[in-house]
């Protein structure tokens, strides 16, 4: 599904707010919200979306399937099928909202947790699992879906996104680029440098920070003394904090930032205020550093539940829809499970492949030595 309707950034009202004339409450302007945790639609003075029931159901479906995929991957790691998994549990709205704001010709530079964005880009979810299973370092062609490889080194990709966006501008294209990173990455020099470069060159890039409150065991307070979105001001471009558990708000804010980039007005920092419900990765034990009450408080803000409530209350989705989606989820889980188990180990000669585009004498020499060494076992195996 793609969400086609536009979310024009409304002109800022100079007069005082008119209140809930349409029966909708007005949210905190510092945290853009269009759908409360209770599933109630609210207004924001600067952002809105106007979606059809079908589009709303589409966003819901994206989030449910992404969560199901994520749960399956976590289970596969527990079963020893994956070496590691970085769960997105709790961040579905931030990823689906921003991901569905993108046009096909936009380019995405993810971290290693953007499974929902990958879903929106049409990357087959099973391709995301190759690196976690250890059969490759990224199992897709970035240019097929305009979705770059996952980047493990924190924050590096923000510079790649900025450079790519500089290239987009040079080409005279009106595409935009989006770079994902986390609150921990905001401490990295590369993120600061990408802010500088993008501002100086007016690059059409959106910095989408998912502040999920924790960088492994370190809380956001260990990364910054000011709200992250406010950092943008120091670089000379706007920063917006959006309710990261509100898919509508994430869609509206990201779309607005992308349109700003397309208009040649430069970068925007979006801070999606959200929560990583699970562990940093399957190697992590969040019970050692955070309280159950905190997680419980965030569970009440669950991004999927609130949209479900809204859909049900407004009569946008019926039981048949939810039941059929449940079935689709199970089918997806089964497909992912089977695909991972069927994933072959790479050919051993792959060690020497694609190191250089133009070749390298040392690689050729070592490849030949390795092949000869492997072949030396053939006789012993009776081949």
């Amino acid at each position, binding site marked *: 599904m793609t969400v086609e309707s536009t979310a024009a950034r409304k002109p800022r009202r100079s007069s005082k707010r008119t209140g809930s004339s349409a029966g909708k409450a007005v949210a905190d302007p510092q945290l853009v919200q269009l759908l409360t945790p209770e599933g109630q639609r609210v207004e924001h003075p600067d952002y809105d979306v106007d979606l059809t029931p079908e589009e709303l159901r589409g966003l819901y479906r994206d989030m449910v399937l992404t969560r199901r995929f994520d749960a399956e991957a976590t289970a596969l790691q527990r079963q020893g099928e994956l070496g590691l998994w970085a769960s997105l549990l709790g961040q579905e709205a931030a990823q689906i909202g921003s991901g569905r704001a993108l046009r096909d010709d936009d380019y995405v530079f993810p971290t290693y947790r953007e499974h929902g964005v990958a879903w929106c880009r049409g990357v087959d979810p099973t391709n995301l699992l190759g690196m976690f299973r250890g059969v*490759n370092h990224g199992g897709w062609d970035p240019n097929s879906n305009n979705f770059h490889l996952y980047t493990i080194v924190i924050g590096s990709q923000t*510079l790649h996104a900025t450079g790519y966006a500089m*290239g987009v501008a040079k080409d005279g294209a009106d595409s935009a680029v989006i770079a994902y990173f986390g609150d921990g990455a905001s401490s990295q020099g590369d993120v600061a440098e990408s802010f500088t470069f993008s501002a100086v060159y007016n690059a059409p890039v959106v910095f989408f920070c998912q502040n999920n409150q924790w960088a492994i065991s370190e809380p956001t307070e260990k990364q910054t003394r000011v709200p992250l979105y406010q950092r943008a001001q120091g670089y000379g471009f706007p920063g917006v904090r959006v309710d990261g558990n509100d898919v509508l708000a994430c869609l509206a804010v990201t779309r607005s930032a992308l349109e700003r980039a397309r208009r040649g007005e430069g970068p925007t920092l979006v801070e999606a205020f959200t929560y990583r419900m699970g562990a940093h990765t399957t190697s992590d034990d969040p019970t050692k550093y955070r309280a159950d009450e905190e997680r419980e408080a965030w569970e009440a803000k669950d991004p999927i539940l609130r949209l479900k409530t809204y859909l049900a209350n407004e009569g946008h989705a019926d039981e048949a829809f939810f039941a059929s989606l449940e079935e689709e989820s199970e089918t997806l889980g089964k497909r992912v499970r089977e695909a991972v188990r069927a994933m072959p180990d790479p050919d051993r000669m792959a060690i020497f492949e694609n190191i250089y585009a133009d070749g390298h004498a040392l690689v050729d020499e070592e490849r030949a030595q390795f092949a000869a060494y492997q072949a030396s076992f053939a006789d012993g195996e009776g081949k």
Partner: protein
Amino acid sequence: MTVQKLPIAKAINESLRKAMETDPKVLVMGEDVGKLGGVFRVTDGLQKDFGEGRVIDTPLAESGIVGTAIGLALRGYRPVVEIQFDGFVFPAYDQIVTQLAKMHARALGKIKLPVVVRIPYGGGIGAVEHHSESPEALFAHVPGLKVVSPSNASDAYWMMQQAIQSDDPVIYFEPKRRYWDKGEVDTEAIPGPLHKARTVVEGSDLTLVAYGPMVKVCAEAAAAAAEEGKSIEVVDLRSMSPIDFDAVQASVEKTGRLVVVHEAPVFYGAGAEIAARISERSFYHLEAPVLRVGGYHAPYPPARLEEEYLPGLDRVLDAVDRSLAY
């Protein structure tokens, strides 16, 4: 007339100019590369002729320079970035090693990273600290990178053409104390392969292997030794990754002796790799152990001491004598 006599810095400048004229995707990026033309004037006049969109003065942020160049390469550009001095490359080292070197492999060959990183390197110009280092081994050690260094104007010109045309990232080390050395450049010649070593001086008693700034010192050493009746062969490696071991081996199997010379610290340096490989390949041809002449395991010293630190004629000749004494 296609043959000109040019200093190395100007040869690189002409090469960049030709690349930009030939391919609109070629960009030059770095600190002060625009109006100033670079602190060594290597990019002099390019911004005037190609504009600020193609000769890009960058913020003072080396990681940002290389990181954005990676993004531009992903978009189809061929950036040639300048790191102002050798010792300033380390803020960009992360981007070069963890990203630039590996991205082609991570993408299973689906994307290419045609980025050239120019680094003026080495000592001998009386500079302050961080301005005289030779970190080439740190890059040659990294799979995915190619590392080259010209020693003369013709190579400076042609190796830059080849580096830009390569679909692989190339670290292009420029011997800054040779920037003003003039040599003939035939801009219509057909250059040899980028990674092929070249014999500078023919000889039969001993092989000196060097690259970049040390080639000239070794050629002078060979001339001095010739006056004493010693026949020294000098091989200019030109490329530190890959290394043309076949050429070194052929020379050593002719002379039976090898001394490797570079400015970088000897410990874990290029000389160690060459000595090990040649010992393995040519063990029965060697009349003496492979010797190395280079920098000490010490930070590059203050300028008043650099002549002590840098391998000069006497230290090279001393190693030649030690080898011949076996």
